[in-house]
């Protein structure tokens, strides 16, 4: 984003904030408009076009909202809409008109917008002017808002090439079977810091949209690399997807549309891992998310925080495997006791356990001793650019490098 747009962004946000806070006790309506599908749609053209888009929309906004609120860009991927003195229907109508302007400007810039779906998330400001996400939803489709199509799903998978170095595959050892049977797609850089709450809800929601785009990129990358496997090489493919991506109607719709283009042969080998299942979430929410994914895969598993205290929602949602990640900043001294407690809690609910990001021989031994059934990471075998066929693997193989030196 150039400096002019950045300036608009800053000024608009400050004005919106001031106006919102001065508004006092009357609740306001808040919407966030996610442009990540536009980014996917445009690919490498996105930076140039979005800059023009921001400038053109800047002219439209006063006419659209008048004294009833503010619409301002946040970064180059989002718009925040803050409206007051309006009911839900009026707000929806206004946002739809704004979306129409986005479509119109894109068409003016010779962008094909047929099938381009732009998600909108709903929130509200409380009586103290603080943003609160009360439900994540998208507007009903209407004029100018087009339902995504299967062609669009294919386009989502094909468009916007990701940097190949962003992803890798870690081998996952099935301890009971004595075989590395799966490869798990991982990001080489964390997609976002730890989850936030409270006043940061809207910022978190914006971050969630970015994560949803990254999830889509990972799915695309995993499928592309899997398709390069030789015909006789068989392995399971684990693709993580964030819980928030699947919980938000708009981002879920896009992800599911992309899933509809997964090859049938891969569906039999694909495991979706729901990442960052929030602790304390209702089992019904997890069940709903898992149910959406099941038609596209062999199994659904869950990835939770290392020190997650309760797996009840996961177990009640019928998810058979719960996993954690030993990567990050924790020392091995800190990891060992956490491993034991994790497995103990999971086994009480008869859940199978996995642990990923295992980077050393000693952690592998500890994971084995703790009772993990699936162990993934560099200590098992080096990270790979793409999955490979399953291969036999026993505990002695963990020490191979020790013996070779």
């Amino acid at each position: 984003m150039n400096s002019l747009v950045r300036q608009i962004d800053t000024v608009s946000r400050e004005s919106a904030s001031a106006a919102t806070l001065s508004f006092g006790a009357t609740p306001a309506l808040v919407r966030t408009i996610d442009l990540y599908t536009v980014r996917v749609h445009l690919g490498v053209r996105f930076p140039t076009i979005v800059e023009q888009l921001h400038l053109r929309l800047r002219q439209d906004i006063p006419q659209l909202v008048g004294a009833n609120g503010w619409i301002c860009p946040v970064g180059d991927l989002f718009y925040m809409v803050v409206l007051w003195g309006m009911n839900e229907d009026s707000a929806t109508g206004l946002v739809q008109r704004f979306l129409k302007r986005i479509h119109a400007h894109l068409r003016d810039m010779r962008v094909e917008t047929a099938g381009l779906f732009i998600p909108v998330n709903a929130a509200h400001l409380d009586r103290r002017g603080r943003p609160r996400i009360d439900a994540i939803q998208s507007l009903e489709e209407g004029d100018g808002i087009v339902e995504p199509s299967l062609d669009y799903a294919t386009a989502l998978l094909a468009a916007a090439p990701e940097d190949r170095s962003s992803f890798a595959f870690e081998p996952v050892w099935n301890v009971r079977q004595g075989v590395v049977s799966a490869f798990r797609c991982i990001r080489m850089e964390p997609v976002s810091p730890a989850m936030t709450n409270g006043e940061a809800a809207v910022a978190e929601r914006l971050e969630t949209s970015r994560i949803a785009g990254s999830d889509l990129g990972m799915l695309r990358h995993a499928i592309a690399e899997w398709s390069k496997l030789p015909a006789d090489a068989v392995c399971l493919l684990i693709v993580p997807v964030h819980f928030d991506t699947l919980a938000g109607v708009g981002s879920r719709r896009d992800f599911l549309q992309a899933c509809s283009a997964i090859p049938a042969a891969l569906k039999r080998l694909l495991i979706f891992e729901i990442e960052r299942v929030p602790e304390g979430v209702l089992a019904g929410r997890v069940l709903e998310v898992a149910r959406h994914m099941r038609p596209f895969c062999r199994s659904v598993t869950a990835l939770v925080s290392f020190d997650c205290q309760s797996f009840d929602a996961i177990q009640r949602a019928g998810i058979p495997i719960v996993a954690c990640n030993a990567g990050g900043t924790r020392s091995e001294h800190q990891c060992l006791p956490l491993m034991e407690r994790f497995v103990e809690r999971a086994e009480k609910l008869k859940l199978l356990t996995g642990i990923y990001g295992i980077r050393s021989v000693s952690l592998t031994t500890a994971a084995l001793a703790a009772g993990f059934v699936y162990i993934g990471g560099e200590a098992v075998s080096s990270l790979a650019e793409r999955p490979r066929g399953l291969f036999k693997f026993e505990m002695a193989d963990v020490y191979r490098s020790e013996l070779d030196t």
Partner: protein
Amino acid sequence: MAQVLIIDDDRGIRQLLRRIIEARGHVAVEADTGRTGVDAFQQQSFDLVLTDIVMPDMDGNQTIVHLRKLNPSIKIIAVSGGGRARNLTPLQLAKQFGADRILEKPFRRDDVLRTLDEMLGGGQAPSAA
């Protein structure tokens, strides 16, 4: 009187082993990780090493491999309970890596004493370092 190195990340186990070893008239030195154990081994002469298997940073089997490289004739006892899962595979592998004996946790005092005596020649006249 023999010099015995105890390597275990569990302080309670180290102290228990120390009491048993010292009651037999030997000298015990403690290390809380495989790495500190190897460091101690490089600085001092020992007749026997007791090492846990499940430890952070450098596990028992890695430790044994290092110790064997430093002193191929050192006597080593691997000790482990296999963790929560009672998975004794890593302990059983210890023999492949050069442990002379393995001892399962939880162990009894008599088991430790018998193994010590066998390794150090009966216990009546432990060799000097």
